[in-house]
């Protein structure tokens, strides 16, 4: 590992921490002014670092790299480690954080300072989730992410933020109980919570001394992470939290946080740990398909922009988990790509909702109308993002969905694959309804002088849309790359 790369690796955990310190050490007045720039820098640097590390790994022919943050560690330690997937995820995190900070400028007023602090902690928590290789450390960073997001949701104490945050907190606490309970049971059998050790302990779990404990362990872990990721029927908190969060926070929250806390973890579990536990995958697949269908159906009659997006998230999370639960390489790659795509398009949509909120002061779709002409950038980017969500080619969302469906089909779950694919029609349904009410339909009174939101919001919608389109168009190249890597 080259020295440069080692240094760059440290930025993932180091830079945000540095930003937090900077933010608090600077004079308050200065900090108020530049705090958002700090966040943006952190986000962009993180994206750059992810790309750099990826390039270095590729150049060195490695697929992963271990590192420790402060001091060298002993044997059996809980290290940080990056592989391609975590790099992808780190890139997503950087992207969404940047978008969130770009949105924050117009929405947060005097809360920017606290927002920056908390968002940096959140960033650290998420990076930690992406980097750790130990289930217990995973829990620790999960908790950090959780706490930071509770506070961020309730950042705006006048609104419904507290309610959303508290619901999230309660459900999250239950999830924690389940996860830790599961970890305890696993720990009893494996004696360690390193990914590799647990996987080894589970490799022949049916012949273990007490399989019941292992079963209890992975069921509890599964349930815990399902709650965290908001899969049906554990989804109750998710729309409330998304809806009540301040605009900028909901961008980050909806774009990446719950995905990191729940979905990424589940992906890791299926990919690295529960490889030999088909039951885990079967249950996950069932949850996934339920989420896909019901999440989309529930979104159809929602009346709040952000709530629609929340239910849409539930549905899309279902797709990611469906890919993961296939247990095949194609499925996993599909899930990872969908993870990335979902981060892109869902962030776009939340940025759009923020733009609408800034421009009109509401996210109630019944009160909106005909914004396409007044807010062309928002309108077009929301269409692109939604089409990507619905899996309309050639946008990015289609390809990852296709891989997932193919994987599900190839593993013999024909009916589930077909249903998952056809459920896109519900996605199309709520997409069309929202477009009709907000952008596409006739203009409503009172919104005549609405103007496009300029600056960061506009920039981030444009950039994210470009990613969605570009990723979709360049997907064949990606496929060739993956083939070159021998992954598919």
């Amino acid at each position: 590992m080259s020295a440069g790369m080692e240094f760059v690796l440290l930025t993932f955990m180091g830079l945000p921490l540095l930003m937090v310190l900077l933010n608090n050490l600077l004079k308050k007045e200065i900090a108020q002014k530049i705090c958002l720039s700090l966040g943006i820098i952190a986000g962009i640097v993180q994206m750059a670092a992810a790309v750099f590390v990826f390039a270095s790994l590729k150049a060195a022919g490695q697929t992963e790299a271990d590192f420790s943050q402060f001091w060298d560690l002993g044997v059996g330690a809980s290290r940080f480690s990056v592989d391609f997937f975590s790099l992808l995820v780190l890139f997503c995190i950087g992207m969404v954080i940047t978008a969130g900070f770009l949105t924050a400028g117009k929405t947060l007023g005097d809360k920017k300072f606290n927002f920056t602090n908390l968002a940096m902690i959140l960033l650290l928590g998420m990076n930690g989730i992406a980097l750790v290789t130990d289930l217990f450390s995973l829990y620790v960073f999960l908790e950090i992410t959780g706490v930071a997001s509770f506070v961020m949701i309730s950042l705006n104490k006048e609104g419904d933020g507290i309610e959303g945050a508290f619901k999230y907190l309660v459900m999250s606490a239950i999830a924690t109980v389940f996860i830790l309970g599961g970890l305890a049971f696993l720990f009893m059998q494996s004696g360690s919570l390193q990914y590799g050790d647990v996987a080894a302990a589970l490799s022949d779990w049916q012949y273990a001394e007490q399989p019941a404990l292992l079963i209890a362990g992975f069921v509890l872990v599964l349930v815990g992470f399902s709650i965290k990721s908001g899969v049906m029927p554990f989804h109750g908190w998710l729309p409330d939290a998304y809806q009540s969060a301040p605009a900028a926070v909901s961008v980050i929250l909806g774009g990446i946080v719950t995905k990191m806390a729940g979905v990424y973890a589940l992906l890791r579990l299926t990919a690295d740990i529960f490889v030999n536990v088909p039951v885990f995958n079967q249950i996950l697949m069932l949850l996934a398909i339920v989420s896909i269908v019901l999440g989309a159906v529930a979104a159809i009659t929602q009346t709040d922009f952000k709530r629609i997006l929340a239910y849409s998230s539930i549905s899309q999370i279902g797709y990611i988990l469906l890919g993961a639960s296939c247990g095949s390489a194609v499925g996993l790659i599909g899930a990872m790509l969908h993870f990335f795509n979902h981060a892109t398009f869902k962030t776009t949509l939340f940025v759009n909702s923020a733009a609408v909120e800034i421009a009109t002061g509401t996210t109630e779709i019944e009160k909106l109308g005909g914004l396409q002409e007044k807010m062309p950038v928002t309108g077009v980017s929301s269409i692109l993002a939604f089409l990507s969500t619905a899996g309309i080619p050639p946008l990015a969302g289609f390809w990852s969905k296709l891989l997932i469906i193919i994987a599900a089909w190839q593993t013999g779950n024909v009916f589930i694959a077909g249903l998952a694919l056809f459920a896109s029609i519900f996605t199309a349904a709520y997409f069309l309804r929202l477009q009709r009410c907000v952008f596409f339909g006739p203009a409503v009174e009172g919104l005549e002088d609405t103007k496009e939101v300029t600056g960061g919001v506009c920039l981030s919608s444009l950039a994210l849309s470009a990613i969605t389109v570009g990723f979709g168009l360049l997907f064949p190249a990606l496929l060739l790359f993956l083939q070159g890597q021998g992954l598919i």
Partner: protein
Amino acid sequence: MGAMFGNMAAFMTGGSGVNLLWLMVVLPVALAVLAVAIPRHAFAARSACFLAATLADLLLAIALFIAKEGSMLLRWTDFEINLAFRVDPFSGAVLLALGIFAVLVAIYSVAFLRRKEKYGQFYCYYLLTLAMANGAVLADNLVVLLFFWEGLMVTLFGMLLIGDRQKPATAVKALVLNGIADLLLMLGVAATAAHAGTFMMEGISQLPIEGLGVLGFVCMMAGAVGKAGAMPFHSWIPDAADAAPLPFMAILPAAFEKILGIYLLVRITFQFYQMVPGSVMSIVVMAIGAITIVLANSMALIQKDIKRLLSYSTISQVGYMILGIGTALPVGIIGGLFHLINHVMYKCCLFLTAGSVEKQTGSTDMRYISGLGKLMPVTTVCFLTAALSISGVPPFSGFFSKELVFDAALESGMIFYIAAVLGAFLTAASFLKLGHAAYFGPLRLPEGVKTEDVKEVPGAMLLPMGILALGCLIFGVFNALPLSVIQPIAGEGYDFSGWPDNWTLVAISCAVLLLAVGNHLFGYRRTGEGLKAADHIRYAPALRTVYDCAEKRYFDPYDIIMQLIKGFAWICYGIDRAINWVYDVFAVDFVSGLSSRLRLMNNGSVGRYMAWSFLGVGFIVLLCLFLV
């Protein structure tokens, strides 16, 4: 590519240089386009062009008639759908007939249409009609036949629209009825081709009427009969009499359509299919003929407008031809064809006389015109000749052809003979009425028309009428002349020229004619008016209701068909709306209902959320116990 364009060039020039057969179609079309291209006010130039086209066509037809054979073939598409023309003695004769009538009516039209609007359109459609008719007769390929056959519909529609664009109902009626007939023909052609395995008419001969053949025969026959204007495809003709310019009536329903329809009927029954006398198909065809004769004549009897009366009479005469051909006996076929020639002549002549009356008085309604005989003597003479011919008075041509048909009908079944004789009676009665009312009796003219304005029509109009009237007489006295052309079609060794052999039948026919005269006199005595001479039949106890209904168009097949179609359409519309309901209402309600249920699940209470979660956990645990 090159080959394609080469083929196109060949296509446009008719293959190997200029071909007579090809010219029969292309020349009228080209001159039609030319006639329209000439400026509107240059009436003379346009008319000259028009007349030249018909004359050229006649010359070509004569040439072909003399040549008796010839063919050409142009690759049109694969699948044997090629532009194939062939002429044989039969079609040569038909072409000649078409050409003659085309010229005669053209001369008449030029005079008739002088100073009328839209005459250019009429010329154009007329020539196009001629081209299409020629093409249909020349066609040696079923699809080509169908092409020209259906093409006639367009010109028909156009001509009917010339009359009155504000009242397009007749044009629609004609197009719909003809369209249905032609679509049936399309089906018939397809079925016949599938049955025979080829589209080339040359290669289709004496197919048995079974399997697909039944469909092919029936549908093609329907097409032929429909074009000829027999029941039930007839009802547009009387309406057209009101709407279209009169030369149209003379040329299309009276002449071309009859010629074409019967031409095709003969082709079907004796070339394509093997129709045995006494077979089911034969009886069906005869039945159509007989019914048409009786019903159409009954309607003709009560008409009060010359053109309408002539129209119904036209329909009824088709019945004779179909009846004759339907017998499948040589005498019947020859009789039918002979009757066709005669009919075309006298009916053309009758329409032309009616046109003269209309031209001079502005009306053909017998309630307003009467006693024109003194004012228009030549016209009256022409009318009388033609009327005698159509009534079957010896020695006019109609008598001889009718006798042949009677002979064949009697041989095929008494009932058909009775129908034919009844038809003869009604024909005679209606023409007695027409002649009496319009040309004799006290002078009466429509309001605003002065007696001194009503005089004989110009020579250009009299000429065709005279020729046709003369023809009626000549073809009667010298009936060997037409029959020598017709008889070979039915086969070798037939000779029906001269006076009929069966004098009993002649006697009966003459008795029937006398009966008709007696009937007319009886009616005239009762009412004192020639026009109302048939009223005792019209208002006879049982017939009265039937006639009332008929006048209210309860029996108009078009109206019945349209009612049925409308009913069908509403059913379809209902089905369509039901399907639409599934999309617009059911699907939407179902999904939003489901969605609302799911929303109720999230009622905002965190306890509820937890409860759902725990239910989920319980479910997973159960599932796990089941799966492990």
